[in-house]
């Protein structure tokens, strides 16, 4: 899967450089993680619970500080200049809740303005919601009446409207039905084609394989395997993933053969 515009691939929009995080209780959540996501690329992070996927996203969003290393968004260190860095990124969480007493429109209006976009009209919001597949009858309904899939669509609409060059997705398809999952996959493909750099944490191996340009497998904070979309053709990713998670594969083999050095 190639990007539509190779000329915009100059510098990574999202970059984790030697990122290490050790929590106060001594748990090492990230161990020297290196990731680069170029414009027009989707990088899927696979891994079990506690593998370090969400920690990575939390460091990018300055919710936690790394023990060492840096996280850059569009070249800006997100821990040194978080407010500046976050202007360049949109975020969709695993379980988009939004404000239950607000309508979809009110939620979108608030979060889009919070994202620094105050020049949109209602029609722009409507277009974004239609694009993510939300029915027009739902626009002015309160979020408390929405299903998880509908809320997730609102979250994606917010990310689209923020129009940031980079997008962080934390297990975005978790809990979605297959139809909604498929629609979502199509949508992030479109966003990638628009030149967005997307870093996605997921448990959904098949969708990761389907849509991603790079797939990385994290285990105990370490990036133990990384494959491009082309490299994954004909590979049973599920088996590969399970083997890594279970620690069946010889460590030397995996580090020597399967992990690409990002630097």
């Amino acid at each position, binding site marked *: 899967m190639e990007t539509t515009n190779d000329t915009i691939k100059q510098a990574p929009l999202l970059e984790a450089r030697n990122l290490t995080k050790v929590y106060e209780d001594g748990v090492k959540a990230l161990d020297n993680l290196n990731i680069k996501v170029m414009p027009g690329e989707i990088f899927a992070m696979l891994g079990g619970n506690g593998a370090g996927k969400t920690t990575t996203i939390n460091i990018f969003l300055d919710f*936690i500080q790394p023990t060492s290393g840096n996280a850059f968004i569009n070249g800006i260190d997100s821990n040194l200049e978080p407010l500046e860095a976050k202007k360049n990124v*949109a975020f969709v969480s695993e379980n988009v*809740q939004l404000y239950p007493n607000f309508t979809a429109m009110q939620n979108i209006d608030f979060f889009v303005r*919070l994202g620094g976009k105050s020049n949109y009209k209602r029609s722009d919001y409507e277009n974004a919601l239609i694009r993510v597949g939300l029915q027009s009858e739902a626009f002015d309904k309160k979020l408390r009446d929405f299903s998880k899939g509908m809320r997730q669509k609102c979250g994606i609409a*917010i990310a689209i409207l923020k129009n940031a060059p980079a997008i*962080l997705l934390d297990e975005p398809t978790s809990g979605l039905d297959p139809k909604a999952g498929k629609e979502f996959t199509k949508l992030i493909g479109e966003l990638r084609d628009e030149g967005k750099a997307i870093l996605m944490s997921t448990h959904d191996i098949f969708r990761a394989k389907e849509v991603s340009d790079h797939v990385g497998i994290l285990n105990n904070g370490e990036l133990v395997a990384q494959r491009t979309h082309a490299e994954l053709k004909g590979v049973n990713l599920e088996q590969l993933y399970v083997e890594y998670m279970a620690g069946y594969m010889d460590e030397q083999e995996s580090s020597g053969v399967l992990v690409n050095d990002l630097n």
Partner: protein
Amino acid sequence: MFKLIFIKELKEILQSSRFTISFAVCSLLIILSFFMGAQNYLSGQAQYEAAKQENYNQIAANTEWMSVNHSIMLPPQPLMALVTGISNDIGRDIEVRGRGELSAQNTRFNDEPIFAIFRFMDLEFIFGVILSLFAIIFAYDAINGEKVNGTLKLCFSNSVSRASFIGGKLAGSFVGLSVALIIPLLIGCALLSVLGVNLSGDEWLRLGLILVSGLAYFGLFLALTIGISAMTNKPSISFLIGLVVWIFAVLITPRASVLISGRMVEVPNVDEITSEKNRYRFQLFADDRPKMADFSAPEGTEPQQVMQEFSKFMNELSEERAKKTEIFEEKVNEQYINKRRQQERLALSLSRISPTSVLSLATTELAGTSLDLQNRYMDSAQDYQQVYNDFMTEKTGTGGMTGFRMIISTDDDSGEEPETIDASELPEFQFQTATFTSASKESILDLGLLILFNLVFFGGAFFAFLKYDLR
């Protein structure tokens, strides 16, 4: 960003069903407290006028000033009905005599003892108990609720500073909820006028400050609860902590401070004081007995003249005893009052740890129903006693006496009914009501403390959020 979050907070509050229910209940209670206060004031005023008239009629039925039994009454005030303080607990009627100690009888609870059990639902109760609870109900999940919902993460995935977020949230919550409370408060104020309770400009100003104090109190509980929410991860935990804080602030601290001060400063009870005074009076009387027994009129004096001489002699003894008693009682009273005030000061100082006590003190001071009401009433009564004594001395040759009284009357053969006295000549009792200036001066410490609590809790919530784990 601050403005955006501020407006979001306002909208979120106004659109929530929690607000709709709470606002309806609060509005109802506030308006009801104004209505009941107005009704209490009007009925109290009618009772007061009737009692005054009855007292006047009784006096006017007398033919001699010497036979007059005169009582004064605590006049009802509109603010007393809105913030009752101790006004229902102190005696309202005082029988005035020219000399001797005055004592106030008949509290409001004598007439309506049911209120002694359940107390009145006045503004102090509404603010102190109800609105502080509503503040907790509104704010217990202000921060950790957003964390659980995931909206906090979504907000901070944008270029938003923590300071503007918490600032907007605190200001939005306070303004949104305060404005919602101001509406029923204003309706309540209008209701006073509609029901015919006319407040003077001075009273309006004091009522205004009472309402501001109430809102400040509400604000500090709101900030305190938001602060607790910003120090915990689960709404259930912050609600529980808020409730425990509320119990200590509203129920335990004020009562505990009184108990502790009672232990630390011992004050003799009123019965002991009365007994000591009585013993002294009996002693004086016993000392005078031999003098009374030794009284003899010169031989050949007419019986009527003997009686007059005896009456004069007894009066002189009585005056002397009264003077001695007065000096003794003043001394005992002073010691008692000093001890009592020392105990009260300690209790009040300790209780000021609790914002609820501070609110009670501020509002009662502003309404003129604080502990000082009793002192002001007794001071006014004592001033009046002096005026009354001078008046009675002028009318009868002696002040309004206490104790032994001898009335000598002669048969009048004219057959005409003796003329009744003109009761309107009696000097009018003037109660020194609190003024805006005096009430403000008295309440300045507590108003200052309310502001301080607000600064501490708003600041605390602000800084707690700056360190909050957003994940």
